[in-house]
């Protein structure tokens, strides 16, 4: 295990402690409930936005807490949904007259935990709504009864809802905006290596050096198929085919294009992929209006990348453009 770690069970708390120490003016870490919150939240003038899900996807979502993004995050252990009472306590801390909105990635564990937490919070008189994010085209509803997974497209939902909530939108408006973003967002990923959860100590799966897992999930869940690794161009084509044809994105569309690294792939390769995807989209008559290259939603140190498209319109674009300030900024 090539990792910087002390006690593997304390991996997440120690990370959160570091995160708060690095952002002393903006973030607070509450160790009892393993949560990270904005120092200036909640405010009765805005809906509180909360996300929780397994850890190991950093910067998602603990490093997306800040002005214009999340108000609080309640992460679980690596790759595990957070326990119900951590979510409930986070909700209580974020209680606002305008209500609390949960942004939940579509995984069974997360859905069940947030559902129970919502029930408990509503019993305490807190208004809670939930938006489900499910942008991954690798798995399709027809064959998988649990539905599509929430992956890197998550970022766009947080960004748009975060911006709108900052502007004072009420909870119904935020739900509507969130659904509109989810509706036009699609992602697919490719893994070139596995990853090793600290408490597990061994890789989640094994994959040969010349193979790739097409349609990988962000917890090492297998995707569509295992194949021989192609060139960067071939991989871009494969990802674009799956993503573009799913919505579908059409000739004349204007999109945000994200190349997201899964943790172990250097940013040089991500820009290389971005350049080729940009060119291929142009050939399809699809214009890239906004560009995102880097790590947004990872699987620990997995080598790999995902490609996300968001169809832009004036409203979505303005929300994506709005100012925000979260720890993941480099300076």
């Amino acid at each position, binding site marked *: 295990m090539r990792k910087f770690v002390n006690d593997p069970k304390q991996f997440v708390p120690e990370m959160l402690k570091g995160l708060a120490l690095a952002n002393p003016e903006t973030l607070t870490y509450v160790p009892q409930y393993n949560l990270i919150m904005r120092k200036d939240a909640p405010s009765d003038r805005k809906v509180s936005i909360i996300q929780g899900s*397994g850890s190991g996807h950093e910067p998602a979502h603990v490093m997306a807490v800040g002005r214009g993004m999340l108000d609080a995050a309640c992460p679980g252990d*690596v790759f595990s949904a957070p*326990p119900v009472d951590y979510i409930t306590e986070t909700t209580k801390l974020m209680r606002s007259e305008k209500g609390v909105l949960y942004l939940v990635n579509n995984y069974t564990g997360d859905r069940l935990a947030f559902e129970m937490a919502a029930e408990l919070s509503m019993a305490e008189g807190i208004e809670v709504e939930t938006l489900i994010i499910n942008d991954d085209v690798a798995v399709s509803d027809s064959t998988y009864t*649990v539905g599509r*997974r929430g992956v890197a497209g998550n970022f766009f939902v947080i960004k748009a809802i975060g911006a709108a909530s900052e502007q004072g939108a009420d909870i119904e408006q935020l739900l509507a905006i969130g659904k509109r973003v989810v509706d036009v967002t699609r992602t697919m990923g490719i893994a070139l290596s596995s990853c090793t959860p600290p408490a597990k100590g061994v890789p989640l*799966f094994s994959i040969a050096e010349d193979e790739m897992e097409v349609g990988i999930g962000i917890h090492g869940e297998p995707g569509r198929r295992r194949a021989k690794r192609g060139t960067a161009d071939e991989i871009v084509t494969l990802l674009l085919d799956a993503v573009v044809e799913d919505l579908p994105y059409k000739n004349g569309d204007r999109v945000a294009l994200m190349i997201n690294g899964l943790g172990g792939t250097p940013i040089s390769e991500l820009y290389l992929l971005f350049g080729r995807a940009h060119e291929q989209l142009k050939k399809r008559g699809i214009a890239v209006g906004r560009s995102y290259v880097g790590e947004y939603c990872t699987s620990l140190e997995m080598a790999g990348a995902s490609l996300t498209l968001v169809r832009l319109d004036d409203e979505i674009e303005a929300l994506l453009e709005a100012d925000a300030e979260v720890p993941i900024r480099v300076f």
Partner: protein
Amino acid sequence: MPASLSVAEDIVRSMAKTALDNEQYFCQLDSVVGDGDFGYSLARGFEKVMEEFDSIDRTDVGTFLKKVGIIITSRCGGTSGPIWGTAFLRAGMAAGTRSELGTADVVAMLRAAFEGIQKRGGAALGDKTLLDALDPLITSFERELAAAAKPGAAFAAAAAAAKEAADKTSELVAKRGRAAYTGERSRGSPDAGAIAVTLMARDVSERCTATAAD
């Protein structure tokens, strides 16, 4: 202390031991088709139960089990937190405030747990979840008791039925939880949750029923 409460204590203690002893093994089973955290989640939940064990409210078996469910829900992440927490909560609710429980009560509690899991997670039999081990366990237990077996023998038979059913989940395609994403590839390995139920039943059978009311 009423006999039923001490049996309930033994059973919870035994389940916790099984969860903690098999942490790595359960993770491994979950990583074949799922995301490999099942053993870890379950162990953290039961670890917390054991930490707080002595101070858990023991007014009656029902209260005791509900409290166990709340601890598990609060500390165990993943799908397993809500699922296993709900099971204990429902079993506790079914036990109510009775201080002594008969075999019929135990069957009712198990059924309540089963239905709670089903309602919470929306899984059907055959979806390759722990329900596929739990259902034959309850059915077999009930059948043996109806055939006048002693509780200990009946539960031993139930544990064996659960084992057989859990092994058979290998043939199923996962339709719930993270394992569902693997589709056809999930065939060929048993469900981690079902195996956990099986091992817990076996251990409970071996460790507890000797001292129980048979």
